[in-house]
């Protein structure tokens, strides 16, 4: 028997939006995130990202698209172990032909932008705290000026206080004009966005605009 993780899902996200996709586990939100992140292609249907039809691309074209259009922030950070902060951030620029000093400048700018302290740039990734690791991951996501930043449970491995600072960082990025898609199963986290899409059993249950209640932000 064939099971569809997603069925008849159709929506659009505009530039500059901050969208949360929320749903319980098994709802199909992970599959949706994989498709949005060009990590996987849908069996049928179409996905346009920044004007490109993604669903028909081959492996290398998908790689190029991910590199140029999408910045990933993962739940488990996924930094290269025993590697400096700076090199982790520069990872997507590998084989780009950009001269090394320029890469370093760009990586430093992104790290500052993501709120990372200058003194930690040379540290090894495994010497950082969870919050710092996630900031490095955000800086890495920013390095190629992506069309969207895709965050998959970015606070899943963090305590409440650190989660608050990370979510504030996302809100700041959004205010600076970045498009952010956040996948989560926690209402508190989803509530930071301006729009929430509820997914359940492979279909969109609800798609509503949201006024952030600022559970995290002290006002």
């Amino acid at each position, binding site marked *: 028997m064939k099971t569809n993780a997603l069925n008849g899902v159709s929506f659009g996200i505009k530039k500059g939006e901050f969208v949360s996709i929320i749903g319980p586990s098994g709802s199909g939100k992970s599959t949706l995130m*994989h498709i949005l*992140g060009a*990590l*996987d292609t849908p069996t049928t249907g179409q996905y346009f990202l920044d004007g490109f039809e993604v669903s028909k691309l081959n*492996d*290398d074209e998908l*790689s*190029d*698209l*991910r*590199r*140029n259009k*999408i910045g*990933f922030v*993962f739940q488990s950070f*996924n930094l*290269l*172990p*025993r*590697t400096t902060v700076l*090199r982790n951030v520069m*990872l*997507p620029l*590998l*084989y780009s*032909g950009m001269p090394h000093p320029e890469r370093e400048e760009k990586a430093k700018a992104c790290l500052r932008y993501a709120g990372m302290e200058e003194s930690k740039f040379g540290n090894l990734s495994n010497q950082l705290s969870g919050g710092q690791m996630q900031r490095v991951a955000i800086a*890495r996501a920013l390095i*190629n000026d992506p069309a969207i930043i895709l965050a998959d449970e970015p606070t899943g491995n963090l305590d409440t206080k650190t989660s608050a600072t990370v979510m504030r960082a996302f809100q700041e990025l959004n205010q600076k004009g970045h498009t952010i898609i956040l996948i989560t199963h926690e209402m508190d986290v989803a509530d930071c966005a301006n729009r929430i899409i509820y997914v359940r059993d492979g279909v969109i249950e609800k798609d509503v605009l949201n006024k952030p209640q600022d559970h995290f932000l002290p006002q």
Partner: protein
Amino acid sequence: MIVDLLKETVWSLAGNKVRSGLTILGIVIGIASVITMVAIGQGAKNSVESSIESIGSNLIMINPGAQRVGGINQGGGSSQTLTVEDATAIKDEIMNVKAVAPSVTKRSQLTAKGKNTNTQIIGTNADYLIARNVTIDTGSFFSEQQMKSSAKVAVLGPATRDDLFGENANPIGQTIRTNNMDFQVIGVTASKGGSGFSNQDDIVYVPLTSAQHYLSGSIYVNNISVAAEDQTLMASVQDQIFELLLKRHKINDPTQADFSLMNQNDIIATATSITGTFTILLSSIAGISLLVGGIGIMNMMLTTVTERTREIGLRKAVGVRKIYINLQFLAEAVLLTFLGGAMGVLLGWGASMLVSKFVSGLTTSVSMSAVLLAFGVSAGVGIIFGFYPARRAANLSPIEALRYE
């Protein structure tokens, strides 16, 4: 691009020094053990061959046969049947003979300047140098004149010289004393190496006539060494000598010959079959080392790459193309195996040198084919098992690779 690739490779390997170090160690041990094994085997083979070679070239040895006294066999070499005239006849009547050296041997006590030693005294002629591959290091061998006049002169082997006069001393002009007679030292032979039953360096040569007059007191000789002109002529020369000596000794039945002939080719053939067995033994040990080393390298590479599946997934997720991931892992495998390989070759070579230095009488020889084989197999195994799993991981979708535990 290439700079990026090299930097990634070096960073990656340097980032995990323990892992890289252990991988290299595995390769080093695999290669070094094979090279050393084969070098020792080759060395053993060479030293056996060269010690046979040092006996002489194209040599046929004539020894007196067993003496029978009333039906009791007294053992080979015990009879006194060979004479200087036999030797002269061989030299005069048989074609393709390069040298004929009759010799009288006697073990005797020697003294010089208060030091003494017990060694083998050989009375012989100048042909002995040719037949037995003996070369003079300093001084000279006895002349025709000294042969004719039974001069009391002696040529020392280097070991005997060392025993009597001290290491590398110049004994020429000095006298040595044996059986209450003084012999003047006129030369020293070059070292032939060899050890064991007959050390060819611990020897004293005197003119044959002198040995017969002063030491053995008999007209018989203990041995005649004949050198044929060419290896291919040895069989025919041997047959002719056999015929000639039978005739001279007036023996009709060849089975009753009172002498025996030994051909150097026979010794070489026996030795070759022994060293051949040696070679097979050592090759199998080397082969097993290579196999074990190869499996070690394979294990190390497989675990290393499998462990890094998540890293491969991440690289793919952030948009690194498959080909660059493949190339990086290939470069890492190549760098590791070549570093390990180079160190292994050096270590194996060094170990072979040490064996030569500390094991006397064994000069190891590092063979190029062993080096290439060991290096080739290790590099092949290392590269295949470093690259193949990485390629497999790079072909996974990034999600699967990222989820890999």
